[in-house]
């Protein structure tokens, strides 16, 4: 190539492209520096800064940061009983939301992937995604008016001698389950779609009834997809603090404690120490999940 064009001087752009062609490392570096730098500085950097501030403290009166190393925040988090109670409550809510989402999403996804005619499938996927177009706050406030004492729920339950559960923990679980349901349906749908029809037929040919086929064929093959969905529902619920403010009544979750400590108490270091709790839980969850192979389904 160079001998053929040796007569005229190569343009600058040609030389650059030639160098990049000969040096794959340089090429890769040039491609990835910007996005990787962004990831490290903006994402990990901010996270690191947050965790670092967990070892600082604040001036009691003015609320300004005092940058001297201390374990006091972690000690407070470990020894204050209210933090433990709230953490357990938050994990409970996240687990309940995940279970409810799975229970609702599985039949729905199965219908979408295996029962519905192909033309209907597209429409159903769009229908599942549609709620994501509306603002989170609008949906949460809509549920607030439904749970209200003069709301739709109360009106519908009154004929059965029941009343709306009102604002509180049950309302929080219901609304979070509603909000995160699409994130559970989609991975399960994708997992079921990959499940060959022939396997279901083979199972039936061998005399297995529906229940047996579900237990022995469908479930083992879709567990990774369910777990992948649960990562979304669990982590989103664990970190949520806005829904609970809108429909949770007086309930507070770990996200509220972090928010209160940043916002009301102006104690960023303590908030950072508290924020490590959900991070540790999620890291543990992800490590456990890795064994199921669910991370390949994300």
């Amino acid at each position, binding site marked *: 190539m160079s001998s053929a064009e040796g007569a005229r001087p190569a343009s600058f752009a040609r030389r650059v492209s030639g160098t990049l062609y000969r040096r794959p490392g340089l090429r890769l570096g040039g491609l990835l520096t910007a996005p990787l730098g962004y990831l490290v500085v903006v994402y990990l950097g901010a996270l690191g800064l947050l965790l670092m501030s967990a070892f600082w403290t604040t001036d009691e009166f003015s609320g300004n940061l005092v940058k001297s190393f201390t374990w006091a925040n972690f000690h407070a988090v470990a020894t204050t009983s209210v933090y433990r109670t709230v953490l357990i409550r938050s994990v409970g809510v996240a687990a309940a939301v995940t279970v409810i989402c799975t229970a609702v999403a599985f039949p729905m996804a199965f219908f979408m992937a295996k029962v519905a005619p192909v033309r209907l499938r597209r429409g159903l996927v769009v229908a599942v995604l549609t709620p994501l177009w509306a603002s989170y*706050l609008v949906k949460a406030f809509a549920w607030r008016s439904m749970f209200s004492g003069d709301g739709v729920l109360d009106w519908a339950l009154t004929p059965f001698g029941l009343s709306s559960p009102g604002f509180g923990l049950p309302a929080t679980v219901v609304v979070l389950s509603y909000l995160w349901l699409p994130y559970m349906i989609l991975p399960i749908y994708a997992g079921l779609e990959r499940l060959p029809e022939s396997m279901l037929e083979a199972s039936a040919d061998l005399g297995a009834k529906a229940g047996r086929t579900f237990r022995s064929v469908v479930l083992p093959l879709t567990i990774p997809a369910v777990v992948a969905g649960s990562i979304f529902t669990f982590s989103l619920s664990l970190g949520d603090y806005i829904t609970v403010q809108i429909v949770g009544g007086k309930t507070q979750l770990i996200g509220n404690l972090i928010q209160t400590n940043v916002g009301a*108490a102006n104690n960023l270091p303590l908030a950072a120490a508290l924020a490590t709790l959900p991070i540790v839980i999620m890291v543990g969850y992800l490590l456990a999940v890795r064994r199921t192979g669910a991370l390949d389904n994300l």
Partner: protein
Amino acid sequence: MKMRATLVATAAAALALAGCGGSSGTTGSTGQGGFKAPPMKAVTHLGPGEGQVNLISWPGYVEDGSSDKSVDWVHPFEKATGCMVKNHAAGTSDEMVNLMKTGQYDAVSASGDATLRLIAAGSVQPINTKLIPSYKDVFSGLKMKPWNSVNGVAYGVPHGRGANVLMYRTDLVKPAPTSWDVVWNKASPYKGKVTAYDSPIYIADAAVYLMAHRPDLKIKDPYALDDKQFNAAVALLKKQNADIGEYWSDALKQVQSFKSGDLAVGTSWQYNVNLAQSEKAPVDAVLPSEGSTGWSDTWMIAAHTKHLTCAYKWLNWIISPKVNAQVAEWFGEAPSDSKSCALTSDKNFCTTYHANDEAYFKKIWYWTTPIKQCLDGRTDVSCKTYADWTTAWQEIKG
């Protein structure tokens, strides 16, 4: 929407803090109770207007006609001064203190539990009252108070004052209450429909109640609580938690809950009461016999504002007689400008709200930041700080 904005602002505050924290502890003038103010001088003259001013305010303080077409003192201000107003309504004093730390705002309507914190953190600057013509008409009972000045240096202009009232549904709460009993010891009939203000400063409301009903605790000032008094107040609040339906910090959400009947009784602002009544909710409010907590608000200017002249112009505007009368009537509080009483649409307004009645305001305990040095003058014990109050508040909510 507002919550999202708060979130962004808090994140910004966190980053700003991480970047330049630790500016406290400089030598400055020492004031009330060993209080230190960072060294700063008030400006002596103002330049031309900058065309913009960013405010943090209590809901109802900065109205541009969007709540009610006839309630608008922002557009006339913009027309008169050329300063365009951007406003952020905050729900609690803590939010205001944090937002001011971002450095993105020029002026704030701070209550007494925020002012000293703002001054100590170096977030606000001293004010040259000579540059604010309306200041001379402010009631003398509001000038140079411990919450708006340090050692004779003014840090803001008084906006107005009022009491936290007891709001109740007239159809659900009978007979009409005259005491805070209905949210404390006699709250059980309204279980799940009682509300309280979602801020550590609400502990003072429990202390006000205990002042009247537990004389053995010898509480002299609800913001100066020693160990024993503090624990009694916290115990009362924990007991109240069983009856609470919701804690509120968003005025509109509280109004909505009272309207729908999800809440029946609890502490509120006159502004919320007026709003609920204007929306035909069957509610009323009373200042209970025990007295109450309350606020005396001060407009302050950010230390490093980029819109200094416009901020000064806003301060002058908001306490000028006509505007001060408008805002006082809209919010339901006593105005700070003595001339505004003649300009209210209800001629008895200043009498109703006790504008110049110092005896009445003796019953009101203005929000104040609790500090270690007991504010009631005791020197043999140390009092609980606001940091202790916030920790306790989280435990109360459980």
